[in-house]
């Protein structure tokens, strides 16, 4: 029984870290991993999702719809930004760093000025359960399920829908796609919007468990970039396995030596991966296949 409860504790903590990494990183995996836009405003899409979903929940909308609404609004904001700013910079990746960083600062400070230094949270729903003397949050299981569902949904979108095929074609060989009659500028906008919506969804999902402040996006960004860099360009061959490996590293080290060790472990993992596998896990898996 002691062994079983220990095993459950480890699986739960790993699952929790996995969910956080996957949900933080999915949007960035689309925008940075696939499209190559180094989006430093990723955290602010998360902020947008969190604030919108919390406001909706305070206004009486049921939580699941509030969360989806958060994702939707973040997606629309993303599409607008793509149309107005980002699309002019596809050929200038370094400039996008500066621009998205600027957008991030404007969004953070704008939120502080307009909405004040914090927003009251809605509280975490569902309560807790006990296994072997330890209490666990039920909502955290929901987050794990949401992470898996998000991955499944993305897989369906990118491999089973016409939009997915067009998006992959547009990003891999844009001029051929265009020659075949694909409206590539529309596809770019939709793909960027999808990435932003995923970030907003992460924000909406984590909002009930966190402190809602204008800088909250920043707490996701390091984990998101670490996961995407370790993963490489592909969401399924890269982001998902990277999140799984990093989750084991983080949960293991945190349980053994505390949060600091967990954070160090994550960063050391990135350094090692970049050194050994410059194209991330995606590159490694694809090479093995070929």
């Amino acid at each position, binding site marked *: 029984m002691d062994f079983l409860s220990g095993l459950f*504790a480890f699986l*739960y*903590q790993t699952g*929790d*870290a996995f969910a*956080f990494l996957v949900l933080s990183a999915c949007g960035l995996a689309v925008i940075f991993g696939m499209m190559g836009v180094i989006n430093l405003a990723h955290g602010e899409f998360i902020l947008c999702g969190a604030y919108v979903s919390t406001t909706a929940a305070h206004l009486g909308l049921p939580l699941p719809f509030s969360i989806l609404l958060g994702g939707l609004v973040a997606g629309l904001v993303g599409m607008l930004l793509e149309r107005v700013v980002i699309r002019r910079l596809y050929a200038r990746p370094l400039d996008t760093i500066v621009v998205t960083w600027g957008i991030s600062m404007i969004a*953070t*400070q704008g939120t*502080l000025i307009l909405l*004040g*230094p*914090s*927003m*009251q*949270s*809605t*509280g*975490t729903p*569902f*309560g*807790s359960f*006990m296994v072997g*003397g*330890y*209490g*666990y*949050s*039920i*909502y*955290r299981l929901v987050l794990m399920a949401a992470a898996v569902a998000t991955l499944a949904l993305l897989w369906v979108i990118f491999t089973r829908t016409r939009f997915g095929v067009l998006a992959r074609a547009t990003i891999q060989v844009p001029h051929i796609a265009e020659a075949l009659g694909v409206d590539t500028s529309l596809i770019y906008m939709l793909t960027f919007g999808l990435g932003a919506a995923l970030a907003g969804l992460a924000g909406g999902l984590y909002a*009930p*468990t*966190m*402190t*809602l*402040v*204008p*800088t*909250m996006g*920043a*707490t996701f960004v390091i984990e998101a970039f670490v996961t995407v860099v370790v993963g490489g360009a592909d969401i399924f061959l890269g982001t998902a396995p990277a999140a799984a490996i990093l989750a084991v590293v983080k*949960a293991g080290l*945190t*349980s053994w030596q*505390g*949060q*600091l060790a*967990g*954070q160090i472990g994550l960063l050391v993992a990135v350094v090692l991966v970049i050194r050994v596998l410059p194209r991330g896990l995606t590159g490694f898996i694809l090479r093995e296949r070929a």
Partner: protein
Amino acid sequence: MDKHAASALAALGTLFALSTATLAEDKTPIKIGVLEDQSGDFALATIGKVHGIQLATKEINAKGGIDGRPIKLVIYDTQSDNRRYQEFMRRVLQRDKVDVVFAGFSSASREAYRPIVDQFKGLAFYNNQYEGGVCDANMIVTGAVPEQQFSTLLPYMMKKFGKKVYTIAADYNFGQISAEWVRDIVKENGGQMVGEEFIPLGVSQFSQTIQNIQKAKPDFVVTLLVGTAQSSYYEQALSANLKLPMASSVNVGQGYEHKRFKAPSLANMYVTTNWIEEVDNPKSKDLVKRWHAMFPDEPYINQEAENSYDAVYLYKEMVERAGSTNHDAIRKVIAKGDVCLDAPEGKVCIDPKSQHMSHTIYLAKVNEDHSISFPKIWQDVKPYWLGQVGCDLTKSNPEAQYTPSQNPKKDGK
């Protein structure tokens, strides 16, 4: 005009300026530099500090200023960034030439700017509770320190809940040194530390930490979490059904978590604070009223906001008694040991040995519905520790920070 003539003229000019200053009544403004975080991770706890300084300034100026001279504020947003503190501290001291600086929230930022204050012989007020130990004649500290907050809080908690203690603390000088204080006081009172974890600033996910605490089975948890990211802990602890009593020197009184989180995530939290807006006495009620008249949207007035408000009045008292803004003259006034103020929290006085402030310490308890009650109040708690370990700023100025494990008494000097 040759060089000598120019310097002679300049000297003459200075002399003239000095003589007019002493002869006629000086109406030039007294400049107070204000370096506080109005954006970034700490902004939530510190915007109120700026407001407190603005409110006190407005009140003092309306009544004729300090010794007939109006106060002029030079305010910069330090963005929760230690480098900004260094940059702006140089700017206010060198370019703006302020008479005094009110600066700093986190201990990391204070230690970042303190060498610059020392270098330019400035005078800085640090209006924030902290881990204690700064023995520096160029600093005046109006915030509470561990012997005021922990020596009161921990024995109370251990008597009420039990002797097994777990500390989670922000991983920088404040958290590390405060945790050292907790360790020492728990040991002195016959208790036992069953765990200690340091959390890097900016961490917001606590699932594993919560489990580590459950594993150690403490009687209560000392939470020394700083910054808005780390305050996600309470919500996550509640949702994992970790309902242990909590003790803190920083929460509620700084980040007003009881207002931001849905009840009952902060229930059973005990905080020693020198003031919060719930304090129920006529002076405090009046302060809150005047505050909201000037800043109607203020979400909460915390202890550091009151410290900052008091600090302006204390500075007024010092300058008026010294007859100038000259730092040596001000220090001579402090050395007399009777610079006091009837503050909203109660009477406060500056201790000449450490240039720290005595406080009324309120034990604030967060109830199930997140209302506040005060089970205990300690009057006139003095900042005695620095004096005990050999800091005496009336005699020497080491410009150092001491800790329980590193101080002149310990080193045998």
